[in-house]
C-alpha cells in the first residue's frame, strides 16, 4: 500500500507510510473495538443461555444485535465522575494505559500469513511483555481512585498477574522451542498441514501444557474464576469501582481485547494459527504465494480460521465464567505457584526431551515422518546454525544475511524477500 502511494500517487515517503500505518492501526483498532462489541453481545447471549434466559432480544432486531451499540451510546452519554481526593492525572490516564497495552499487543499478532501489523522477530516475547503492561493501568486506577476497594483490587491484580506471568512464560516457551523461533508467523507456519501438525498434538507434554497455558491466560486477563481484581461480591467492582462512562468502557475494551488476544495467541502457538485442521488450500493446489487473488483468498480464509479459533477460546472463557465460583486470593496464588508453575516446568522439560529424542514423533520411529515434521528441522537448524557465517561487516568473506539464520527461518525469509 505504501509503495502504491509512493509510486503511483507520488506522495512523499513519510506521508505514504503515515497513511499506511494509520490504516493498519485503524484495522487493528477495529478488530479490537468491534470485537469487544461483539464479545459483549456474545457474553450476554451466552450467559443468558447458560442461565436459562433469553438475554437481549429487542435492541436492533430479533437477537438484540445492537445491544452493545446501545450500551456504548449510553456509556458515552454518561457523566464521567471522578471521586474527590483522587489523583486526577493518574485517574484519567489509567484506562487508556490499560487499553493501549492491550492494543499494542495486537500489533505483533498475525491474523494470517501476511496479515500482521508488524512482523516481529520476537513476537511471542513482545506480546507477552506488552500484555503484562495492562496490569499497569489497573494498578494506577486502583491507586488513583482514592477508594479502598479499588486499592484492594489493584493489589490483587498486581500480585496475580505478576505471579501468573511465570507459568505463562514457561508455557509460551514450549512452542517457541519446538519452532525454533519467537516469530509468531514462523511458529504458525511450522504447524501448516493437517491438524496433527498442530503443537497441541505434537506430543503429550504440549497437549498438557496447552491447558496450563489456557488456565494461566484466563488468570492473566482477569476472567472468572480468577477475576479477583473486580470481584463484585467482595470488592464492589474492584479497581473500576469509581469509574463511569467512557473510561469504564475503556477498561472493558481492554479486557475483551486481552481475552481475544490470549485466545489468538493460544491459537497461533498451539492450534496451528491460521491453518485449518484440514489443509484445503494446499490440497487444491493453492498457497499464499500463488497469484494475487488466490493468495489473498487463502489468507482471508486463514484469517477467518484464526478468528474462529480465538472466538472459540473466548467462548470457553465465558462458559467457565458463568459456571464456576470465584477462587480466593490465596487459592489463586496456590494454583499458580504450586500447580501451574511446576507442571509447566515439567512439561517444558518433557517437551524438550521429546523433541530431542523423538524428533520424528512416535510415528517417526516407524519410519514415517508425517507427524511433527518441524521438530527435526529445528534440530538440524540448530546444528547448522553455528556453522553459518557471521555478518559481512567483520569478515572478509561474503556472507549472506540468511546464512546466519537457522534453516527454517532461512526459507521463509527468502520467500519474504522475493515478494
Amino acid at each position: 500500500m505504501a509503495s502504491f502511494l509512493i509510486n503511483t500517487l507520488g506522495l512523499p515517503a513519510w506521508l505514504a507510510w503515515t497513511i499506511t500505518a494509520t490504516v493498519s492501526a485503524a484495522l487493528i483498532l477495529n478488530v479490537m473495538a468491534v470485537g469487544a462489541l461483539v464479545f459483549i453481545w456474545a457474553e450476554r447471549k451466552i450467559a443468558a443461555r447458560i442461565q436459562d434466559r433469553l438475554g437481549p432480544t429487542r435492541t436492533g432486531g430479533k437477537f438484540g444485535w445492537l445491544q452493545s451499540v446501545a450500551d456504548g451510546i449510553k456509556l458515552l452519554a454518561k457523566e464521567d465522575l471522578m471521586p474527590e481526593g483522587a489523583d486526577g492525572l493518574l485517574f484519567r490516564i489509567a484506562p487508556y494505559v490499560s487499553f493501549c497495552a492491550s492494543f499494542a499487543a495486537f500489533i505483533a499478532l498475525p491474523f494470517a500469513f501476511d496479515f500482521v501489523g508488524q512482523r516481529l522477530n520476537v513476537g511471542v516475547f513482545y506480546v507477552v511483555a506488552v500484555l503484562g503492561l495492562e496490569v499497569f493501568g489497573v494498578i494506577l486506577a486502583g491507586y488513583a481512585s482514592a477508594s479502598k476497594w479499588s486499592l484492594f483490587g489493584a493489589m490483587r491484580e498486581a500480585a496475580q498477574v505478576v505471579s501468573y506471568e511465570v507459568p505463562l512464560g514457561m508455557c509460551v516457551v514450549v512452542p517457541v522451542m519446538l519452532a525454533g523461533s519467537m516469530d509468531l508467523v514462523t511458529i504458525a507456519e511450522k504447524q501448516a498441514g493437517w491438524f496433527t501438525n498442530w503443537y497441541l498434538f505434537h506430543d503429550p507434554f504440549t497437549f498438557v501444557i496447552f491447558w496450563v497455558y489456557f488456565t494461566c491466560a484466563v488468570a492473566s486477563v482477569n476472567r472468572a474464576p480468577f477475576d479477583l481484581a473486580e470481584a463484585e461480591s467482595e470488592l464492589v467492582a474492584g479497581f473500576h469501582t469509581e469509574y463511569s462512562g467512557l473510561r469504564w468502557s475503556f477498561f472493558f475494551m481492554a479486557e475483551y481485547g486481552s481475552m481475544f488476544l490470549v485466545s489468538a495467541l493460544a491459537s497461533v502457538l498451539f492450534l496451528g494459527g491460521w491453518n485449518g485442521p484440514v489443509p484445503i488450500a494446499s490440497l487444491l493446489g493453492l498457497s499464499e504465494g500463488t497469484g494475487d487473488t488466490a493468495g489473498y483468498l487463502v489468507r482471508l480464509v486463514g484469517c477467518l480460521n484464526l478468528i474462529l479459533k480465538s472466538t472459540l477460546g473466548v467462548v470457553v472463557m465465558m462458559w467457565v465464567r458463568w459456571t464456576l465460583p470465584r477462587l480466593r486470593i490465596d487459592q489463586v496464588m496456590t494454583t499458580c505457584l504450586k500447580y501451574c508453575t511446576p507442571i509447566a516446568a515439567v512439561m517444558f522439560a518433557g517437551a524438550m526431551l521429546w523433541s530431542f529424542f523423538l524428533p520424528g514423533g512416535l510415528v517417526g520411529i516407524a519410519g514415517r515422518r508425517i507427524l511433527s515434521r518441524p521438530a527435526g528441522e529445528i534440530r538440524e537448524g540448530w546444528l547448522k546454525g553455528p556453522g553459518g557465517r557471521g555478518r559481512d561487516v567483520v569478515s572478509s568473506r561474503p556472507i549472506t544475511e540468511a546464512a546466519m539464520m537457522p534453516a527454517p527461518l532461512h526459507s521463509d525469509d527468502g520467500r519474504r524477500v522475493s515478494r
Partner: protein
Amino acid sequence: MMPSTLLGPASLLGPTSLLGFVAGGGTACGFAMVPLAAVNWHGLFFLAFAVVACVMAVAVVLADNVVRMAFYLVLSLGATAGLFFLAGAEFVGAMQLMIYVGGTLVLLVFGVMLTAQAPFVSIKTATGDRVLAGIVAASLLAVLLQAAFSVHAWREPGRFPGDTGGVVEPMSTPLGMALVGVRVDDPSPGLAQENGGGNGDGSGGAAAGGRSGYLLPFEIVSVHLLVVLVGAAYLARAKRRRSSRELSEAAR
C-alpha cells in the same frame, strides 16, 4: 501485490513503526524546518521516543509523588524500549518491556503500599538541593555531551533501515547463541570443520576464535539471580526470632 501488503506495510520502517505511531501519535510531524518530502520515518520515531524518554526522565526528577514518579519512570523506560526496537535490538527492547518495566511495576506497588499514609506520598526536596543538583546536572550533561560528540566515528550518520533490503535482521537467534557460548559471527576455522563433520555441538569452536561467547557470564548471572532471590527473601523475611539468650533473660 496490493492485498499482500495490506496489513504488512511496515517492513521498510524498522520494526516499531506501528507501535511508534500509536505511542508517538505522530507528534513530531510538525517540523517545518525541513522539507516534508525529505523527512524519514526512522528519525521521526527516534525523535518521538527520545523526547518521551528524556522528558519523562526529567519528570521523574521533578515529581514529588512516588506513584507519579513511578508512572513517569515506566513511560521513560517504555520509550527507551521503543528506541531499542528502532536500533534493531528487538530482543533487548522486549526484554526491557518485560523485566524492566515489570520490575518498576513492583516498585510502584511498593510505592503504593509504603506510602499509604499521607506523609510519605511526597517527601519534598529542599530548594537549595534542587539548585545545587541543577548545577551539577548541567555540568555533567555538558561533559557527557562533549564526550559523545568528540569521537568522529560516532557522528557518522547511520543507515536507513531500508538499506538492508527490507528485511529486519533477526537478532534474537545470534543473541541466544552467544548466551550459550556460540558466536555466529565467529570466523574461526574450527567451526567449518565441525560443520563438515556434521555432528559438532558448536560450543567447542567458540574458544578458538578471538571472540568468546557469554556462557560463563550467563551462568554467573543465573547464579547471581538465585543468590539475590534468596537474599531478598531473607531481608524481607516474615519474622525475626529472639536469640535463646534473650529468651532466657525474658524468662527471668
